[in-house]
């Protein structure tokens, strides 16, 4: 069975070629999308500069980073806790919760926004909003971002917790560890990759969250203006170059953060080479 020649080698080569074509074509499309922004921004360099110089855009930048980090942290803890519960315990209604947690992922973002707005402004919960000033303020941004982020964290973490199926957790319990000790010393450290993946996806979703923010937090210039809202506002005032410039800014930040995540996810145990046998 020499696989380097004969008819099988040819078909392997063809198979590889198909894969490579798919990869190249799609990468080109993605690069072209970024390039289109560069091009539009490049045509109106003064406009770009004028846009990025606005204090509102700088505020939007800090607000975007601040709210997305904040909501990522909340999403991470809440999502992980629920994922651990559903993965470890069987109880009445756990299947229902499992289904429910997927809802924010499948719902159109706008539905989340309008539902939040109705919940906080049309139901008896309105006293809560009067008290804490959530709707049309910064907390609304965080709430909207957290809802979707938590769903993504839940999905990612539950897949990991299910995969372990509690084997090493059970062994840790035989050694006298409480459920809390098992969770903090065994489950969490063993799920480091999944945690990093959760952070990346929850943050990316939060950073780019637009629909719910637009409806629930409004689009007040410089007040509830996160970067996607800035793009919307610039586009609505006809400033295409400015919108492209902010898009590029978002791409840049996302790229930096994702590289950072990749870098930190390299585990000190898994990166060390081979076994010394």
């Amino acid at each position, binding site marked *: 069975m020499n696989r380097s020649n004969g008819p099988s080698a040819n078909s392997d080569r063809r198979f590889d070629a198909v894969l490579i074509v798919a990869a190249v074509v799609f990468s080109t499309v993605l690069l072209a999308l970024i390039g289109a922004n560069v091009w539009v921004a490049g045509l109106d360099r003064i406009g770009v500069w004028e846009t990025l110089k606005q204090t509102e855009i700088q505020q939007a930048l800090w607000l975007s*980073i*601040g709210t997305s980090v904040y909501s*990522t942290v909340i999403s991470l803890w809440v999502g992980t806790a629920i994922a651990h519960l559903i993965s470890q315990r069987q109880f009445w209604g756990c299947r229902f919760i499992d289904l429910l947690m997927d809802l924010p992922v499948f719902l159109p973002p706008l539905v989340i926004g309008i539902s939040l707005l109705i919940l*906080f*402004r049309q139901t008896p919960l309105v006293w809560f909003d009067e008290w804490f*000033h959530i709707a049309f303020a910064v907390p609304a941004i965080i709430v909207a971002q957290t809802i979707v982020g938590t769903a993504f964290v839940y999905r990612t973490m539950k897949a990991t917790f299910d995969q372990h199926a509690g084997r090493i957790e059970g062994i840790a319990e035989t050694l006298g560890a409480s459920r809390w000790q098992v969770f903090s010393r065994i489950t969490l450290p063993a799920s480091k990759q999944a945690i990093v993946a959760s952070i990346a996806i929850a943050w990316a979703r939060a950073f780019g969250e637009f629909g719910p923010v637009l409806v629930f937090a409004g689009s007040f210039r410089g*007040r509830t203006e996160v970067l996607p809202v800035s793009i919307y506002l610039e586009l609505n005032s006809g400033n295409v170059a400015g919108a492209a410039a902010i898009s590029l800014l978002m791409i840049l930040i996302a790229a930096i953060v994702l590289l950072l995540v990749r870098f930190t996810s390299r585990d000190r145990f898994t990166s060390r080479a081979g076994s010394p046998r």
Partner: protein
Amino acid sequence: MRSYVGISGFAMIASTFLILFARSANQGHDAVVVLCAASLAGPVTELQEAFQSSKLNADGLSIDVLYRGSPELLALHRISGVGDLLIAADVHYHRVFVETEICDAPMPLGKQFPCLIFTSVSEKDALSILNHGGVTTSLPKPQHAAIGRAVAKIVGAQTYQRMLQNARVSRETVTQVATDVSNGVVDVGCAWTTTPRQFSNLKNVVPPHWDQYESQVGVSVFYASQKRAAANAFRKFCASPAGQNIFADHGFSAPTASAKNLASAPQK
């Protein structure tokens, strides 16, 4: 575990500082909230800045503006009660609000007319969209944008429906239409005579009789507003000579109708 808690805590604190830092220039809850038609972003942004630094603003009020299509503003206000003032592109919307006893009678601010906008085609080609021209169009939807409603009224609802079916794009706000035309996505679009001011490359033509439809921009105060005094101060500023100059700079004609004429519902 401890490190996770530590990192989380640090991230929360750091991001809280970032959020506070980002907002330090604009302080929050006591701002007067203006719901404003998206097409009026140009003059209203200037009004906002002028008011905040004017001596009419003795209490140091800050103004926050939400720019959307007028029907969406109505929906948002109904759902959430957000907003102290309404500035709509066409007093028709005020009438809807006034009739449903949501806001008081509008104070007129300026006047604009529907027109056709274009960049590269000739004026004749632009006018040809009224009778099956060979040009591509971006048209505002009558149920979403004041301009769509206006044009539909002028050319007749059925004709406009036909024009919409032939259009390459149909949009919710006049600015979206103008952006389409400005970017060369389409040849011709419908807009207000004031719209081309926001775009350097737009030309406009007012078809015959279109100037008989005048759209009055008006401002009214919501009954639900908890800052009515402050809202009235801003409204007064809009109607003052300083405010009127800003509208004139953006191509609006002086308003003709008085507030009384515009309001058909009883005053509260």
